[in-house]
């Protein structure tokens, strides 16, 4: 039992330490007042993290996928990245690294009446991926998902608009106050709605909206890291109660929504396996 509690602490440490702080650790922005453009920006993180965040040092894979679609270029590197990470760990990055997942996990702890998300909404994320990330950017040259992304609003929109320093090159405010209009307030409204939803349901963004989760979900059943339910499981549903994605682990192991957070391994009948 002690090991299982430790596992939970490790997960929180990894989400905050690597997912939130290490990825957004460009402290020089306070002196340069310019976004980081060094060599690390060439690399994508395997989770959602807006590269327009003032302190971001890596790029967002979904932002980049939209960029390649808008440029009508084939995303060789990104596709390879998705295949390699997906084949190795499936959706584990959602459970262990994604800072937006952490925010959802924490907000769900607020004591309010809770409700379950209907199963058919699980397929919405594939529609979001195909329409907002692939098709619309290809035909309109605009990053539609980024324009609406609530995590982008939280990580980049709010910090830049509230700080809005003077650009040292242009000698003018980085964000022109006249440009803060409808799209910005729409994004803020979406963010507010999502934050309320996070309090009421388990990880709704990951289950219903996240296009990156939709990509990793495809690999969940073939990935190296998998879950196993031992024969003789009494179906006590301890695993399902602990699951942050509200899954019936014993009935649908390694489902497309499983984020491999390993919380369900608190039950002695469920264990993780790295078997080829």
């Amino acid at each position, binding site marked *: 039992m002690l090991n299982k509690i430790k596992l939970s602490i490790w997960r929180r440490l990894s989400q905050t330490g690597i997912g939130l702080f290490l990825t957004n650790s460009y402290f020089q922005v306070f002196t340069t007042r310019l976004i980081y453009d060094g060599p690390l920006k060439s690399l994508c993180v395997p989770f959602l993290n807006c590269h*327009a965040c003032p302190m971001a040092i890596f790029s967002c894979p979904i932002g980049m996928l939209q960029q390649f679609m808008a440029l009508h270029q084939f995303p060789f*590197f990104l596709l*390879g990245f998705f295949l*390699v990470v997906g084949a190795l760990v499936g959706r584990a990055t959602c459970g262990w690294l994604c800072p937006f997942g952490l925010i959802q996990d924490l907000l769900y702890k607020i004591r309010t009446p809770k409700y379950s998300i209907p199963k058919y909404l699980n397929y919405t994320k594939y529609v979001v991926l195909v329409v907002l990330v692939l098709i619309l950017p290809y035909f309109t040259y605009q990053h539609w998902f980024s324009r609406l992304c609530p995590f982008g609003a939280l990580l980049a929109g709010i910090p830049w608009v509230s700080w809005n320093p003077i650009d040292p090159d242009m000698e003018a405010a980085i964000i022109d106050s006249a440009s803060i209009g409808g799209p910005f307030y729409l994004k803020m409204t979406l963010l507010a709605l999502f934050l309320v939803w996070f309090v009421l349901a388990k990880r709704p963004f990951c289950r219903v909206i996240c296009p990156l989760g939709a990509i990793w979900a495809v690999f969940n059943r073939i990935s190296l890291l998998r879950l196993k339910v031992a024969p003789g499981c009494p179906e006590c549903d301890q695993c399902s109660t602990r699951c942050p994605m509200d899954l019936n682990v014993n009935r649908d192991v390694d489902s497309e929504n499983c984020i491999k957070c390993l919380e369900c391994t608190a039950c002695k009948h469920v264990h993780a396996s790295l078997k080829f």
Partner: protein
Amino acid sequence: MNWCKIFKVLATNRRAWFVAGLLIGIALLLYGMVIADDLAQIRLEGAEL
């Protein structure tokens, strides 16, 4: 040789999918880095506000 049978075995074999995914992924990753110069494109876009 029964190609239909071979295809069926491969399509339903988790290990085959895993190995194919990993190998194709590594090949695309290297092609994107070395030949297509995708990293420069990513860096350029990543530095945009």
